[in-house]
C-alpha cells in the first residue's frame, strides 16, 4: 500500500501524467469548441493523425519546430473545413461525415508518408521539442518538475485551456458560440450568421485537435509511425462528455486519464510479476468508462448538437 502512495506522491509521476494528458488536452478542447457550436466532430482521430504527420514532415523537410506546429494546425483546419462544409451548410449527418473525415485524413496521411518515404524501414527522426529549462522555475521542488520541465507544447496546451475558457464565457464571440450550439434560431434572430459561427468553430476546433497530433511526433516521440494516434481522438470525444463541455473540467478529465495511464505503468513494475500486463493496459480505459457512466448520466448536452440548421425552416 505504501508503494502505491509513493507512486502517487512522486513528482515524476505527475510530470508523466501531464505529459500523457497533453495531446488529450488539445483534442478535448478542440472537440469541445466544435460541439459547443453544435457540431460533433468525429473526424478527430484522423485530424490527430494528419496533424502528427504534417507537423513532423514539415520539420523533417526543414521547417522550424514552430513552423511545423503551424503546418499541423493548418492541416487540421483543412479537414475541419471539409467536415464543416458537409455538416453545416449542406446539413449532412455529422456522424457519417466525421467518420468519413477520419478515414480520409488517416489514409491520406499514410499515403503521403509512404509516397515521400517509399524505401525506409525505420522512421526517420527529427530534432523534437526539448523539455524547458527555465532558470528558477524549473528548479522549484515538485512544481518545477511537474510543470516546468515539460516541453513548450504542454505549456501551450495549458494556456489554451485558460484562453478557451475566457473566450467562451467572457467574450461576445464565446456567447455566440454557446448560443449557436443551443438554439441557432436565437443567433439568427439576433442578426448573427449561424453558418459563419459554426464553420468558424469547427475549423478552429479542428486546428487545435491537430496540435494534439503534432505533440505526438514533435514532442512525445520524434518520428511518425502508423497507428501512433491509437484511439486518442476517441478518448477525447468521451472526455468532452465527461467535462460537460467545460474547458476546466476538460483539463481535469485529461489529467485523470493521464494519471491512470502513468499509474498503470508504475504499478506494472511493482506487481507486474503476478498480474498480466494487459490488465494494466486496460485500466485507464475501464476507469474512463466508469467515470463517464457516473458523470454522463446528468450530462447537459448542447441542445442543438447534431441538428443541422436550415434557414427559414421551423
Amino acid at each position, binding site marked *: 500500500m505504501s508503494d502505491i502512495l509513493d507512486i502517487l506522491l512522486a513528482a515524476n509521476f505527475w510530470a508523466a501524467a501531464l505529459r500523457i494528458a497533453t495531446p488529450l488536452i488539445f483534442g478535448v478542447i478542440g472537440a469541445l469548441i466544435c460541439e459547443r457550436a453544435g457540431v460533433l466532430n468525429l473526424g478527430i482521430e484522423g485530424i490527430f493523425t494528419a496533424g502528427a504527420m504534417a507537423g513532423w514532415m514539415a520539420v523533417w523537410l526543414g521547417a522550424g519546430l514552430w513552423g511545423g506546429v503551424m503546418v499541423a494546425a493548418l492541416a487540421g483546419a483543412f479537414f475541419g473545413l471539409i467536415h464543416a462544409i458537409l455538416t453545416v451548410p449542406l446539413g449532412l449527418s455529422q456522424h457519417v461525415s466525421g467518420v468519413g473525415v477520419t478515414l480520409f485524413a488517416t489514409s491520406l496521411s499514410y499515403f503521403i508518408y509512404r509516397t515521400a518515404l517509399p524505401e525506409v524501414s525505420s522512421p526517420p527522426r527529427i530534432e523534437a521539442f526539448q523539455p524547458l529549462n527555465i532558470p528558477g522555475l524549473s528548479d522549484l521542488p515538485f512544481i518545477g518538475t511537474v510543470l516546468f520541465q515539460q516541453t513548450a507544447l504542454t505549456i501551450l496546451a495549458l494556456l489554451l485551456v485558460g484562453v478557451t475558457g475566457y473566450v467562451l464565457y467572457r467574450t461576445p464571440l464565446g456567447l455566440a458560440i454557446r448560443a449557436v450550439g*443551443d*438554439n441557432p434560431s436565437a443567433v439568427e*434572430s*439576433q442578426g448573427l450568421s449561424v453558418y459563419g459561427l459554426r464553420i468558424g468553430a469547427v475549423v478552429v476546433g479542428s486546428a487545435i485537435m491537430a496540435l494534439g497530433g503534432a505533440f505526438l511526433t514533435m514532442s512525445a516521440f520524434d518520428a511518425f509511425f502508423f497507428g501512433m494516434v491509437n484511439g486518442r481522438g476517441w478518448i477525447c470525444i468521451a472526455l468532452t462528455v465527461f467535462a460537460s463541455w467545460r474547458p476546466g473540467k476538460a483539463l481535469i478529465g485529461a489529467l485523470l486519464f493521464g494519471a491512470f495511464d502513468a499509474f498503470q505503468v508504475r504499478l506494472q513494475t511493482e506487481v507486474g510479476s503476478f498480474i498480466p500486463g494487459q490488465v494494466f493496459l486496460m485500466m485507464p480505459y475501464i476507469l474512463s468508462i466508469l467515470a463517464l457512466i457516473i458523470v454522463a448520466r446528468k450530462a447537459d448536452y448542447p441542445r442543438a448538437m447534431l441538428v443541422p440548421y436550415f434557414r427559414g425552416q421551423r
Partner: protein
Amino acid sequence: MASDASTRPVVLQLTGITKRFGSLTANEDVCLDLRQGEILALLGENGAGKTTLMNILFGHYVADEGTVQVGDGNGGLVALEPGSPHAALEAGIGMVHQHFTLAENLSAFDNIILGTEPLFAARVSRRQARSKLESLMERSGLTVNLDIRISSLSVGEKQRVEILKALYRDARVLVLDEPTAVLTPQESDTLFQTLKKLSDSGLGIIFISHKLAEVLASSHRIAVLRLGKKVADLPTGGCDQRQLAELMVGAKVSETIRPPQEPGAPLFVLNGIWAGQGRNAIEGVSLTLKSGEILGIAGVSGNGQTMLAKVISGVERPERGTIKLGSVDLSHANARVMIDNGIARIPEDRHHDGIVGTMTVWENLASESVRKPENQRFGLLRFAAMKERARAAIKAYDIRCQSEESPARLLSGGNIQKIVLARTLDGAPQVVLAAQPSRGLDVGATADVHRRLLEARARGAGVILISEDLDELMRLSDRIAVIHRGHLSEADPTETLDRSTLGLRMAGHSGADAA
C-alpha cells in the same frame, strides 16, 4: 385610438409584397403601413400568409416582388435590404416569433445581449448592458430575473425576454407573431397592457392573431389577410366580431350552439386519483362523467391538466385511486387498453403526441386500430383496405391534403387535428378526452372541432373537454370543473357560472369565496 395618429410619421411601409413557394402564393400584392405609436393587428386564418409577410419584413425570406421601407427617423423612408435579419435589426425592427428564439441553456441576460456587441470584442461589457436593461425593465414594466437560465422561466417570462431583446436594440417597430397562442388569459391581459404602454411611448407595434376578441380589444387598426391578399384595413373602432370573422373566412360563419340535451347515466368515474410529482401532479382528483354530456375542465395551464389527460388516456398510471368505465376497472390500464375500451384521446400537443409526422396520412389514420381485423389478416397489414378507409375519412372529415400518401407533417395544424379527430371518433368511442382541442386553430377548424364534439355528445358519448379558453368551455360544456394546483373542484352546471366566477376559481379562490 389617438385622434392624431394619422398625422404621425410612418415608421414602416410594405408595398406590393408578393411571395410564392412553388405553386403556392403565400402573399399577393400586399401593402401595409404602420405609424409611430400605433398598434396594428394583422388578422387572418392559419395559412393566410401573416407569418410569411412578417418573415419577409424581418429578412427570413426574400419577397419575389415588392419593397419594404422603414422610417429614417426624420419623416422620410429608406428601403430595407431584403433577406437580412441583421439589416432589419439595424433598422429598428424587432420580432417576437411564435416559437421563441431563445437559447434555453443561457441566461436571459445572455440571450438579450447576444449579437449586440462586436463579435471580436475582448469582453462583454456587462455592467453597461445591465444598467441599460434595468432601466428598460423599469420603464416598460417587463420584469424578469436576468440571471437564471431560460429553461427555468415560464412561457410568459420567456415572451418578456423576447420583447426585451427587441427593446434593448432600440426597436421602433415591434412585430409579435401570435403572441397569445401560448399565454393564459391573465398573461395575455398583462401583455396587452404592456403593449399599450409601449405604443404610448412611440413604439409601432404589429401583432398577428386570429383571435377576434383580443384584436378588437387591443388594436388601433386591423388589417385582414385572406389567402395571401389583404382584404381589409380598417380602424378598430366600429368593427365587430361577426364582420371580422366574415372578412377572415370569406363566408358567413355560424356559431356552434349546444342543443339542450338531458344527460344519461354516469359512465366514467375517477375516484381519488393521485399521479405525478411537483408542478404537474394531480392530487386526489375525482370526477363523474355522464353519457351524453360535455364536462369542461378549466384551469390555467400547468395546474395538472396535462397529467389528468395522461392518466385518462392511460399514458400515465395513477399511484392511487380508481378509474371505472361502467363496471370495468381501468385503474391500471395502459393506453392500448384504454383505446380498446372506447376511451378516445385528442392529445394536447397534436404535432408531438397526435401524429407521426414523417408517416403518411393513411398510416396515421390507422395507427390506433392496426390490430383490428379490418386492418390486418394473419398478422399482415391490409394496405388496400386501410387506404380505402383513409380516403373515406379524408372525405368525411374534409382533411385537406394532396393525397392519403402525403406525410402528415406537411399538413396545417387544423388538418392535423382533423386526422386526430377522424382516427379517434371513427370507432364511436364511449368517452372522448379532448385536451386543448382548438388551441392554435383558426375559426373554421375550431368550428369543425366543436361540431364533432357536439356530435359525439349527441350520440350519447361522454366528452371531457380540457381547455384554457373560457368562451369555448362555456359554449360547449354542460358542466364545468376547475383544476388548480392539481386539485379539481366540483363540476357545476354551466348555467350557474360566469366568467368572473371561473376566473377566480382558476386563480385558486374556492367557490365559496367567490360567491
